[in-house]
């Protein structure tokens, strides 16, 4: 399992013991003693998850949670709290915590939570990676090719596209072949799926196609 587990806890022993235990379980770990040190070091784009103690000197867990979200970092966060602290548990969930564990930790719950969080974090990472790759491919399209792609997404036939762009249907067919090539797909349905996955939508509008 290739995920990074960030451990943020101000208590040396708790932090170190989590570090040892999780490394024994095969995770790559990165321990931090303060929220500030963690926020300085955390990478925006890695697979993995965060174990975050709520009760720390400022910035405390909730504050760290808030700043992570503010920076658009969506690594899954497993929050640790004191037993029976329902108020901060609720606040943590509202702040977007992935899972919530009470100290002293139950081993099975800890393993399950980190497993699930890492999986979710890795999946999100993979999705981000793919989207970035697709966007890189989209970036290689010329303006005209991009325009044709949008019309294809809107579901128009070659003849309609040709009429709108004032070119011959055969030329439209040539553009389509270039699109398949540049986006590295072999058929039209795959082309449409990839375009949608990359975040492209049909925003040409019907009025453009129907004068």
């Amino acid at each position, binding site marked *: 399992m290739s995920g990074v587990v960030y451990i943020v806890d101000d208590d040396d022993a*708790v932090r170190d013991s989590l570090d040892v235990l999780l490394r*024994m379980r095969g995770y790559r770990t990165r321990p931090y003693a303060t929220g500030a040190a963690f926020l300085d070091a955390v990478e925006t784009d890695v697979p993995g998850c965060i174990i975050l103690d709520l009760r720390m000197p400022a910035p405390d867990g909730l504050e760290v949670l808030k700043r992570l979200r503010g920076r658009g970092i969506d690594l899954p966060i497993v929050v640790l709290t004191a037993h029976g602290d329902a108020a901060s548990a609720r606040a943590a969930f509202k702040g977007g915590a992935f899972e919530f564990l009470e100290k*002293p930790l139950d081993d099975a719950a800890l393993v399950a939570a980190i497993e699930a969080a890492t999986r979710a974090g890795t999946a999100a990472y993979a999705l981000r990676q793919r989207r970035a790759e697709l966007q890189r491919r989209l970036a290689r399209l010329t303006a005209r090719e991009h325009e044709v792609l949008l019309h294809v997404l809107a579901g128009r036939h070659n003849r309609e596209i040709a009429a709108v762009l004032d070119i011959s249907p055969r030329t439209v067919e040539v553009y389509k072949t270039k699109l398949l090539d540049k986006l590295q797909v072999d058929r039209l349905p795959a082309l449409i799926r990839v375009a949608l996955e990359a975040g492209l939508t049909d925003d040409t509008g019907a009025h453009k196609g129907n004068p």
Partner: protein
Amino acid sequence: MTTWRATLRAGSQTRHPTLPLAAVYVAVYIALDWLSYIQPVGPLPITAWNPPPGLSLAFLLHFGARQGIWLFVAGVAAEVVVRGLHASPAVLLASAAIPATVYTTLAWALRGPLNVDFARPSLRQIATFVGAVLVACAVVAAALITLYARSGLLETERWIALAQSWIGDSIGIVVTTPAIMLFAARDRAPPMPTRRWLAQVLAVATAFWVVFFAGLHDEPRLFYVLFLPLVWIAMDHGLPGTAAAVLIIQLGLVAVLGYRAGPLLDYQFLMLALAVTGLLIGAAVSERRRIERELRDKQFELDRSLRLAAASELASAMAHELQQPLTAMGNYVRACALMADRPDVPRDELERTVQKAVEESERAGRVVRRMRDFFRSGALTPDTIDAQALALAAIAGVRDRAERHGIAVAVHAPPQGLAPIRVDEGQIQAVLQNLLANAIDAVKSAAASPAIVLRIERADAATARISVEDNGPGVTPDIAEGLFTHFATSKAHGMGLGLAISRSIVEGHGGRIWHEPLHPGAAFRFTVPFA
């Protein structure tokens, strides 16, 4: 009087006198009228001491102004029975209707807009009561004298008659009504005669002797002497005692003067001043005592909840501090288990991790030790003190609360006394207060004749034993199990926290604390060292 009081005690929301009770009222009214019909103006019902309106007002204050018709019935009956048909029926009916109407209105006003309540009288209420009575009596006197003058029954001495009518009714009400109302509203038996109480009676008697027998005959010049014992009584017993004393002084005055044809009217003005002064002082004393008591109760509750809050704060801080080493220890040990299964992990890393787990267990131990030291040496300043004085001080702290719930509290000590003990007085006092508060909570709702005993005795040559025993429902076996160990209870008012702290304090003194079931009730005992 027993029937009367029994009904007053029953005190349902909508109170109606039963017919026999109304009849009793009328009969007592007639008897009072007959007894107090002394030195009248001619054949008219005008005397300088007229208690029947006092009885009537008390009757209406209790049963409501709607029972006013009985005042008219009693008035007519008294006229006929006591004085015979001394005037035309029309005049007789009118002379009964006037006071009945005015005093019914007075009762309505006192219960309603003037808001006078003898169950919880304040200085303002008593002053309002006296003022309203004086006005109402003036109205009655003016109306009656006009009636008698118009019907030719009163030729001369109209001003004297007016004054006598007013003073007679005023003093009759001011002296009688509060005494009846306060007697009915009292919540515990009158105090047993103590030496001080007897001294006060003696002082009143002495003052009487000075006023009437040692001084100049039939001259009220020394009357002021009576103020002294009355003020003393007022300061000591508050309003109820004063009301009783005023009534007794008035009866004595009537007995001495009325039947030997002294100038009762002159004395009654002084008597009115005496009664009003006494009642106002008594009311002020009672009100102040009530406020002091309420403040003390609030303080007591506050202290108790603050102590509990501090303890719960401490418990939560301790729980947090223990959580960290326990969490770390668990993680290390689990990691060790994983390492032991893996041949590729170097042996010294396993040993290092085991060592870390051991360190964490020692850290947890340090947290617990620091906690115990906090109770033990942190605040402990032992003194050599007298156990009996300590017990009496503890009892004094809860006396008011206990009395209000009718709980008998006593200190039992060996007759030959007990050697002084060596304890931190503040801390042991906190333990006693906590045990007594628990005992009060236990008995106040349960036992028929609730009682708490604080027992101090010799346990052995080196230790004294202090016990708080109650006759409440006792401690159920399942609770008794962990009575002193429920440290982390979440209940704000549970026994657990208080007893756990008590245990820490007692053990900090080198003693022990335990619970013993009684039949019925419970005993909490602890030992402390002799000095």
